[in-house]
Each structure stands twice: as structure tokens, then as C-alpha cells.
């Protein structure tokens, strides 16, 4: 992608995604948790297909474009599940081995007609894609799914791509939301959104629902997760950048003891430290995106890059939002003021797909194994 294209995309994304705190608050504790018509607008701009190759009617722009979009959506606290559906779920379908299901569903995902969620973690969570909570027993030429999958974005998805363990290994299956035996329990989160706990009680799958067979499910999952981890990091960058800007503004204007509190050296130094963390996060994101975009990137390099940026961005976003609250004083703790929206969203996204600590551990394992 040329610099010009990137800049144009950034401008149009920033132009589209403006913070609307009334809308953000309206979607708290709401089902569905996002606006399908906004999702449609994003589809119309081609955003849902930036990671889909042109061969499948996507834009094929790659990770560089996806993170630009994700950052702007994060900056404006958009509740639409870009990373979860357009990155995580879409990539797991794309890197599966069912041409039929790709032909059927990629266009619908791209066009914004379908929203899909990837169900890959067991009840205890964790970053090990081989650990899933769903078993698939063979019966009469079909599969019977039993078990639980947790921390699934998006509770309001039209369908789930489910990781399930068969006798042959891990497979991914496309399960419609209204499949018999599937129960979806929302688990509320700090920002008023919810993730889903899926319970599978003799849910039927088959060769026809198989998105990825045992020969490619693990690599597909690992890739999809790594890309979405980078996407989530971009979202965190947007969140922390906005929170810091709000705080700097406050420091410049709030007067106590006859002076703008931003003139106090102690606060200036603390603000600078936050700025440094934000800049480190941005640099880490650019580096990670470049690594993922490089065709010669190995799976280890990809995983290390993803963990590197998520560890940094998760830590920085929480540090910035917490310090922002302290610097604002009591007003920052009110719901009426917007800072809490950033803090609560940072809590959610920093924990999703592995928090800072989990990614430091993974980064270390990769480095030590090399």
C-alpha cells in the first residue's frame, strides 16, 4: 500500500468515525450491541474486505489498512465489532480449506450482510489455540458438538465459527446462531458491551459446515488470532490517544490555586511519561504491521510481533486512562464526563485476546525457543 493510499484511508476513516458519546452510551447494555446500519456504511466503504483478497471480491489492502481503520474506530469508541468480525472471524474462514463456504460467506461478510464471531477459547481462556472447550463426536456421518466456548465476540453475531476437537484433530465449523442446541449467554463487560459464553448441547455439524479441516485449522486460527491481536492493539492506540488528548486539554484549562493545573511541573512530567508510552505504542504498531505485511514473515515472527504490540498497547492504554482519571480529579470519575468511556473500553480491549502479561509470556516463550 502506498503512503498516499494510507493517508487517504486515514483521513477518510478519521472523517467517518467521530466520537458521539450519546450513541456510545446508548449501546451500553443493549442487544444488539452495535448498529447494523453503521456496519453497512463501513461495508459500503470497503472496510470489511480490506483483508479479503481481490480473488474473493475484497480490497486486498492488508494489515496496514486494517490497523488504520481499527485505530480510528477505537479513537471514536465505535461499538461495531470490526476486529472481531472483519479480522478474527473473516480470516479464520479465509485461511480455512472450504472453497464452498468461502464462496458462500466471504461476499456476505464483505457486504455487511453477515456478522460472524470466532469461538475458539475454553472457559478458562488463554492464548493456546489448541485448547478449545468443544468436542465433536462423530455420529451417523455427522458431528455432535458438546461443550463450551467463552469470551466470544460477538454475542449478536449471525453465525459462529467454532473451534471443536474431533478424532482427527481441531476443526472449524460454521454454526448458525439459531442452530438447535446452541445457547448464547452474554457476560457483561466494563464498557457495557458483552462477550458470549456459548454452550453446545448436541449441536449438529457436518462436512458441509466445515470451514477448516484438521490439516489447516490450527494454522488458520493462529493467523487469525495474531492479526486480530494487532487490530485490537490499534484500537487501544486510538483509545489512549483520545484519552491523552482529553487530559492535556483539561490540564491546560482547569484552574485551581489561581493557575492552570497543567502549569504544575509534577503534572507536566507525568503527562510527558504518558506521551512516551503512547509514542512507543504507535511505533510498536507500525513495526508489527510491517512484520505481518512482509511475505517472508514466519509464524514465529508474526506471533512475536503481535504479542509485542499487544503487550505494549494494553499496558500503555491502562496506564494512560488511569493517570488521566487521576489528573482530572473527581469529574473524571463521573459518568457524565467522557473519560470513563475510554477507561472502561480500555479495560475491555486490553483484556481481550490476551492481556499485557499473557503476551509478555508468549513473547518470551517465542524468543527463548528461537
Amino acid at each position: 500500500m502506498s503512503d498516499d493510499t494510507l493517508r487517504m484511508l486515514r483521513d477518510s476513516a478519521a472523517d467517518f468515525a467521530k466520537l458521539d458519546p450519546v450513541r456510545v452510551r446508548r449501546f451500553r447494555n443493549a442487544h444488539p450491541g452495535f448498529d447494523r446500519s453503521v456496519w453497512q456504511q463501513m461495508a459500503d466503504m470497503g472496510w470489511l474486505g480490506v483483508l479479503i483478497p481481490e480473488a474473493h471480491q475484497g480490497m486486498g489492502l492488508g494489515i496496514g489498512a486494517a490497523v488504520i481503520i481499527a485505530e480510528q474506530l477505537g479513537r471514536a469508541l465505535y461499538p461495531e465489532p470490526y476486529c472481531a468480525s472483519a479480522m478474527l472471524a473473516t480470516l479464520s474462514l479465509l485461511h480455512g480449506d472450504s472453497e464452498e463456504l468461502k464462496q458462500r460467506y466471504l461476499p456476505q461478510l464483505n457486504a455487511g450482510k453477515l456478522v460472524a464471531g470466532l469461538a475458539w477459547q475454553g472457559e478458562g481462556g488463554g492464548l493456546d489455540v489448541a485448547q478449545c472447550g468443544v468436542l465433536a463426536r462423530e455420529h451417523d456421518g455427522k458431528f455432535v458438538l458438546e461443550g463450551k466456548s467463552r469470551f466470544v465476540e460477538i454475542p449478536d453475531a449471525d453465525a459462529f465459527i467454532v473451534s471443536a476437537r474431533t478424532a482427527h484433530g481441531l476443526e472449524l465449523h460454521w454454526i448458525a446462531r439459531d442452530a438447535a442446541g446452541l445457547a448464547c449467554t452474554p457476560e457483561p463487560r466494563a464498557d457495557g458491551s458483552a462477550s458470549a459464553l456459548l454452550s453446545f448441547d448436541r449441536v449438529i455439524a457436518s462436512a458441509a459446515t466445515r470451514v477448516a479441516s484438521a490439516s489447516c485449522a490450527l494454522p488458520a486460527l493462529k493467523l487469525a488470532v495474531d492479526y486480530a491481536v494487532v487490530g485490537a492493539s490499534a484500537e487501544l492506540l486510538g483509545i489512549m490517544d483520545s484519552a491523552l488528548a482529553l487530559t492535556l486539554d483539561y490540564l491546560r484549562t482547569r484552574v485551581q490555586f489561581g493557575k492552570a493545573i497543567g502549569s504544575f511541573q509534577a503534572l507536566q512530567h507525568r503527562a510527558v511519561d504518558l506521551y512516551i508510552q503512547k509514542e512507543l505504542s504507535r511505533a510498536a504498531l507500525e513495526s508489527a504491521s510491517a512484520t505481518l505485511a512482509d511475505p517472508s514473515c514466519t509464524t514465529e515472527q508474526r506471533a512475536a510481533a503481535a504479542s509485542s504490540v499487544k503487550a505494549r498497547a494494553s499496558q500503555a492504554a491502562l496506564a494512560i486512562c488511569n493517570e488521566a482519571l487521576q489528573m482530572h480529579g473527581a469529574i473524571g470519575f463521573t459518568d457524565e464526563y467522557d473519560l470513563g468511556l475510554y477507561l472502561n473500553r480500555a479495560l475491555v480491549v486490553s483484556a481481550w485476546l490476551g492481556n499485557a502479561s499473557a503476551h509478555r509470556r508468549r513473547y518470551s516463550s517465542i524468543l527463548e525457543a528461537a
Partner: protein
Amino acid sequence: MSYGVTQEQEWNALSDEEFRALVRTEFETHHPRHLRFPPRRLRWAENGDWYLRMAAKGWIAPSWPREFGGMGLSPSKMLIFLEEQERCGIARFQDHGILMVGPVLIRFGTEAQRRRYLPPILACEEIWCQGYSEPNAGSDLASLRTEAAQEGDEFVIDGQKTWTTLAQDATHMFVLARSDKNAKKQEGISFLLLDIKAPGISVRPIRDIAGHEEFCEVFLDHVRTPASNLVGELNRGWTVAKSLLGFERIHIGSPKLPEYGLQVLRSVARQQGMLDDPVFRERLARLQLDVAHLGDIYGHFAAIVGRGEQLGPEVSLLKIWATETFQRIADLIIETAGDCGGHAGDVRMGDQSIDILAPFYKARPSTIYGGSNEIQRNILARQVLNLPG
């Protein structure tokens, strides 16, 4: 007359151990379990029965002198009472009548004011809230702008108070208001008592980022209060307000909240299988030591209060260390909870249901209220370290 309250016995005649055992038994036996260690401030509807029980026993005002309806506890017995309360997870009575108005009237008030206001406080018939902070007077409280103009035998009050704890449950409010605009900041302020139902007062709850409504804005529009509701001298309200009692100043630095945080941290760690992880163990030990040493230093200041001596400005370090340690614990809880770290309310973890974010939402504002930690550091820097200002 001790304001209609009779004490069962002379508490100070008991040994500390006897008194502690007696108090502990009462709390453990009679305090409702489901109200212990609440994740947020409780409303009168939730815990009113407990305080009515305390009032009936004569235990509602443990620090007040017996002749004014209190238990008349010595400083060391008072500390024991508070420790046992905290140990049982009993929320402190949010009533500023007990915490502030009573002690202030006992020290600065007229006999008429005591006769009018102490009995309903002791009976929990009147509940008080505190009107200090304003939108433009937070850390710089002395710059408050709410005005009190004397008109004949009344004061007329105009302005706005904010961050008033549980004003929704209060029947009365005390305010600091500017009664002399020409005097220096702290020297033109008066301490006034108000009926919250007086015409011109409107109370608006503030929703916080955790979704709770524990604080209110209070708008004062030409509110009239009799001149007899002035406490202490005119324009000397700052002195009245500053007379915070010794164990109130150290309460905010108590290790009990961080200790509770450590309990939650251990529960989460156990569910995540982290108690055997050496990295986690080291981090846990660091926090355990932070809390242990907080306890040591709290004990040092408590002993000063227990001897009836005055606390110096060094006590500010207690608030800083207690609140920031609690924050570090809350942050480690979130980190240890992993994929659950962004989940709200009671979260299923293994075989338990744990409110992972409750300590976080409690810890975050604690470095802001009660004198922000920045202000506390200023006090230490100027008055203890004698750094130039």
C-alpha cells in the same frame, strides 16, 4: 442528661481484650452477612436496620463523650471498635451527623444547638451529608464560592455543592459558605446547618463510571436557614471544618481495604492456578509486604491517637501509601484475571463467582477524595521535608 442514651457499662473499665471480644461477638453475631464487604456504598434502605440496632444499643456514636450520648470510648478502645468493624467488613456509617456534626457541635456549638440536633442524630432520625466541594473548588476548597448572606435572623445561601456523599438519603446538610467576600480566602467562610427539605435545595445524584450513584450535586437557590444554625463564629468556619478528629485522619490510611484486596487477589490467583507461579508469587509477596508495612506504620500513628496526642503532618503519608497500594493490588487482580479482566459484576471463575473490577472501582477514586494524593504530597514536601515552596 446524656441525650436519652444509656450505656450498658463503663467500657473503658474493661481490658482491651475483653472489650474487643465483646464488640467482635456483637458484630459477628448480629451484622447481616450479605452486607459485609460491600463493593459499593450502601443506601439507608439496605443497611438502615443495622444502624437502628446500633442506635438502640447506644453504640451509634462510639467516639462521642458519654454526657452527649456516646460510648465515651478512650482513644485506644475507639481504635479497637473501628478495627473490629473493619475486620467484619461492616461499612462505616456514612452519616456525617455522627462523624462531623456531633463532634463539631460538642466542641464549637451552643447548648441550644446540641439539644436540637444531637438526639435525632443518636436516634438515626436525622441523617446528615457534607456540602464542601464545588465544581470550581476541589483541591482548592478554600476558593469555594457558595455564598451566605445574612438577612435579619436568617442566612440566605446561593451556590452549588458537588460530590456530596449519599445526599439522597440525608435529611440535613452542613455547608461551608462564603460569608465575607472581602476577607482572605480561608477567613471569610462560615459553617452552616441546613434542612435538606428547605425550599431552594435540589439534589441530583451523580452516576459514576462504575454505574453507581453514591454522590450528588446539590443546588442551593436562595435557601434560608435561621442564624441560629451558624456553628462557631461567623467567618471562622474553616477552623471548624478543619477540626477533624485524630482517628478520622488515620482511618483513610487503614490497611483493612488493601487487606481485603489481597483476599480477592488470592481468590482470583487460585482460580487461575497462579499461586504456584513463581513470577506471580514474587509480585504477590511485594504487595503483601507493602500492606504489612502499611499496617506497621498505621499502628505507629494509631498509637499516637491512642495516647490522645496530636498527629503531625507526617500522617499524610498513610493516605498516600494505603490508597496507592490498594490500586496496585486492584491492578494485579485485573491482570491475574486474564480474559476475565474486563468483565463487570460477578464473574464466573472456576468454581467461584468473583467481582473482579469492584476493588478497581473502589481504589481509583481513593487517591482523589479525602484530599488528593497530590495535595498530601505537597503537605509532606512543605511541612515535613521543608522543601521550599
